C-alpha cells in the first residue's frame, strides 16, 4: 500500500517511497509526502523520529537508499550536480544553529550567494542586504560578526540570508528552539508574512508545539522514521492515533504512589 499524504494541487515537493538506511539502522521507512506550494508545512515529531534526515534528503545533503524527492519538478535524488544547484538557487535554508560563516560579517554572509550567482551592481547588493535585514529587524547588526550575535539574532540573520535570493522554497530547521517567546513569535509572524506576500512555500521542522499551531497550514507528523499522519492542524488535533495524542498532550509525570519504590529507584538496591 502506498498512501500518499498531501493535497491534490501540484505540490512544491513530492516525496515517494523514501528509504534511508544508516547501516544497520533504518532511519526513514517508506516516506511519502506531498508538500503544497505557497503554504507553510510543519514537519513535527520527537527527537529521533527522522525529521532531520528527511530535511537533509530534501536539501540534497543526504542521498536516500531508495525513493525519489521531486522539488519543483526535478528529482534531486537522481539530478546531476548542475541540475541540483539550479533547484538549490530557488531554495533558502535557515539551519538550526544559524550556520553563519564565522569568518564573515552578517552583511557578507547575506551577500555571499548574490556575489557568487549574480552580476548585480555593488549598490544593488547593498540595498538588497539592508532590505532583508530590515525585514528581520536586524539593520543595526549589519557589520557584526556571527560570534557577536545572540541566539535570537543568529536565527534572524540566518533567515535573512536564506531569503536573500527571493527563493520559492524556504526551509527552517527548529526556528524557535532556544528563543525567548517574543522573538519566537516575531519569527512566526515573519514566516506567515513571507507566505502571504511573497507566496513562499515554507517547510518548518520543529518539535515546539506552541508555534506549530500558530503557523502551520499543514502538519506532517513523524514517528519512528515514518510519516504517521498528514493534515491540517484541525485534522491532526482530531486524529485518533494514540501516538499523536501522546505528542499533543504531554502528560504530567505520574504522581508518586509507592514511596518505597521511588526511594529504591533513586538510591538503588
Amino acid at each position, binding site marked *: 500500500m502506498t498512501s500518499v499524504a498531501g493535497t491534490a494541487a501540484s505540490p512544491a515537493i513530492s516525496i515517494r517511497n523514501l528509504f534511508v538506511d544508516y547501516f544497520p539502522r533504518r532511519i526513514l521507512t517508506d516516506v511519502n509526502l506531498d508538500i503544497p506550494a505557497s503554504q507553510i508545512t510543519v514537519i513535527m515529531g520527537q527527537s529521533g523520529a527522522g525529521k532531520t534526515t528527511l530535511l537533509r534528503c530534501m*536539501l540534497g545533503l543526504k542521498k536516500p537508499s531508495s525513493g525519489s524527492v521531486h522539488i519543483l519538478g526535478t528529482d534531486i535524488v537522481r539530478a546531476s550536480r548542475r541540475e541540483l*544547484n539550479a533547484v*538549490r538557487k530557488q531554495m533558502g535554508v535557515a*539551519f538550526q544553529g544559524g550556520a*553563519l560563516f*564565522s569568518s564573515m560579517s552578517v552583511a557578507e554572509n547575506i551577500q*555571499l*550567494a548574490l556575489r557568487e550567482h549574480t552580476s548585480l551592481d555593488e549598490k544593488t547588493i547593498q540595498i538588497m542586504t539592508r532590505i532583508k535585514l530590515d525585514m528581520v529587524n536586524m539593520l543595526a547588526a549589519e557589520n557584526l560578526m556571527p560570534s557577536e550575535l545572540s541566539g535570537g539574532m543568529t536565527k534572524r540573520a540566518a533567515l535573512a540570508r536564506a531569503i536573500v535570493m527571493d527563493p520559492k522554497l524556504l526551509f527552517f530547521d527548529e526556528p524557535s528552539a532556544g528563543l525567548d517567546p517574543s522573538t519566537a513569535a516575531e519569527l512566526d509572524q515573519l514566516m506567515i508574512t513571507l507566505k502571504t506576500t511573497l507566496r513562499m512555500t515554507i517547510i518548518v521542522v520543529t518539535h515546539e508545539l506552541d508555534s506549530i499551531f500558530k503557523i502551520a497550514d499543514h502538519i506532517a507528523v513523524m514517528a519512528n522514521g515514518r510519516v504517521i499522519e498528514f493534515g491540517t492542524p484541525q485534522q491532526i488535533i482530531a486524529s485518533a492515533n494514540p501516538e499523536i495524542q501522546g505528542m499533543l498532550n504531554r502528560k504530567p509525570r505520574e504522581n508518586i504512589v509507592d514511596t518505597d519504590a521511588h526511594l529504591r529507584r533513586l538510591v538503588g538496591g
Partner: protein
Amino acid sequence: MRAALEKLGAVVLGWLEHTGRTFNLLLLVTVELLQPPYRFYPVVRQMYFIGARSLTLIVVSGLTIGMVLGLQFYNILQRFGSVDLLGAGVSLSVIRELGPVMTALMVVGRAGSSITAELGIMRITEQIDAMDCMAISPSKYLIGPKLLAGLLSVPLLTMVFDFVALFGGYFVGVVMFGVAEGSYVNGMIDTVEWSDVRIGLEKSLIFGLLVTLICCAEGFYMHLTKAGSQGAEGVSSVTTDAVVLSSIAVLYSDFLIEALF
C-alpha cells in the same frame, strides 16, 4: 581468531577508504578549479595565512638548524681534518633534505592544524552544508584556495628556510670557528648540483600539496568519521590526526622520493 581477522579487515578497509577519500578530494578540487570563475584574491589570502604568518617560525627554526648543522659537521669534520667540506655538508643536507622536510613539518604545526580545526568547526556547525545549499561548492570555495596556497607557499618558505639555514651554518663555521670563507662558499658551490636544488624544490611542492590536502580532508570529511558526532572534542581529535598523518606523510614520501630518484 575470526573476530581478530574481521577487526583487522575493518581497520584496513577504513584506512583505504580514508586514503581514497583524501585523494578523491584532490581530484574533485582540481576539476573544479579548472572551471571558471577563477578567483585569485582568496588564494592570496590563504597564502598570507599559510605563508606569511609562518615566516617568523621558519626563519627562527631555519637559523637554529643551520647553526646546529654547522656545529655538528664541524665537530665531525675536524676529527678527519677536513673542515673545508663544511660548506658542502651543510648545504647539501639543507637543500636536499632538511629544508623541504623541516619547512613542511613547521607548516603542519602552524597552518595545517588550524586548517583542519577551521574546516572541522565549519562542518559540525553546518556551515559547509549551508554553503552547499546555496549552490556554492564548498570544496571549490573553501579547499581550492587552500590547496593552491599550500602548493605555492611551501616551496617559497623552503627557499627562505634554505637561505637562512645556510647562513646559520656559515655563521657557526666561518664566524665562530674561523673556517676559511672561501672554502665554505666554494665547497657549497662545487658540491651542490642543479639536480639537488631541483629535488629539493620538487619535494617542497609535493609536501606542500600533501600537507594541505591531508589537513583539509581531515576537517572537511570529519562528519564521515567517528569524530563527526563528538562536537568540539571531535574537532580536536581530527586535528591531532591531521597533524600526525601529514607529518608521517611528509617523512614517508621524503624517503620514497630519495629511494626512487
